[in-house]
């Protein structure tokens, strides 16, 4: 005769083994207490949370600001450092790195890539530098007026020389 209870034979069924290393009957959480598998929406929320915290961190560099002081920068606005001033009030390490990166004219997208920061954060840092006169900004060649035949011809001629 087996010393172990067989399922359905000896009621009430006690889970085994019962040597103290497992929770005693009643200590197991009721099934409602087990964490439910989150529905798909909750996975998404978690993902969003993760992403949000990943995104929020860079904005601490900007002192929590999420908008630049001037909304003039685009991905291809060219920024150029005006002087090699190395320090100043309110300049963070990232500002100085950005200044170094635009010692030669460079697009906002390039500065962002080299800083390894989102474009939005980079624009805020650059607007600080522009406010202080440490950089100049050159607007994209194509203005908001739409296509410009002279510009397109110039691009065409430039490509023909490559």
């Amino acid at each position: 005769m087996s010393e172990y209870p067989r399922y359905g034979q000896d009621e009430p069924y006690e889970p085994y083994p019962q040597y103290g290393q497992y929770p005693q009957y009643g200590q197991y959480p009721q099934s409602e207490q087990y964490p439910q598998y989150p529905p798909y929406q909750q996975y998404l929320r978690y993902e969003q949370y993760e992403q949000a915290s990943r995104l929020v961190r860079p904005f601490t560099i900007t002192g929590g600001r999420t908008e630049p002081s001037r909304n003039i920068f685009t991905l291809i606005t060219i920024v150029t450092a005006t002087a090699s001033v190395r320090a100043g009030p309110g300049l963070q390490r990232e500002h100085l790195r950005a200044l170094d990166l635009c010692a030669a004219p460079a697009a906002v997208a390039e500065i962002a890539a080299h800083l390894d920061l989102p474009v939005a954060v980079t624009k805020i840092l650059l607007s600080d530098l522009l406010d202080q006169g440490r950089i100049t900004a050159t607007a994209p060649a194509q203005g908001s007026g739409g296509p410009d035949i002279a510009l397109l011809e110039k691009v065409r001629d430039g490509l023909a020389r490559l």
Partner: protein
Amino acid sequence: MPGSDTDAPSAVKILVSGGFGVGKTTLVRSISEIAPLRTEEVLTASGADVDDLCGIEEKTTTTVALDFGRITLFPDLVLYLFGTPGQQRFWFMWDDLALGALGGIVLVDTRRIDVSFSAIDFFEKRGIPFIVAANCFDGRQAYTAGQVRQALALGPDIQLHAFDARDRVSCRDTLRTLVDHLVERVSRTP
């Protein structure tokens, strides 16, 4: 523009688009004078844009990464090529990417044309002129130009160009095809 400096060049951009793995980065790498750079932007999608996915009405932020290259055309004019992300769903909301683009190149892999549909859609919706460039993956095209045109439902005014993204000259010629098209398009409209 405040703080404008006449000595610095100004820039133009062209978008290189198409589904995942169609050769966008390869094209940028082939023709760029710098190794392709990668940058990302934080985008906010409204509930309406995401609820087909998950049924929740709320704003969601997402990062979109793209790679880009640079071609100095003249001392005072620089061309940037932006490869749009192939697998991310939200890049088309990146206004700064779309605004002011001279034009776009939609890359298609003729063995799986469908992955580039949404790129065509994007340019059409944004009113950005574009050409379609079919990448020769096996050194040849699997389908004729007519078949590709039909599959993509391309109008007769949209140019279809065959090229190899690994070849610099071929990439340059693709860019030239686009810009010739842009020049012609502007000269046509009075």
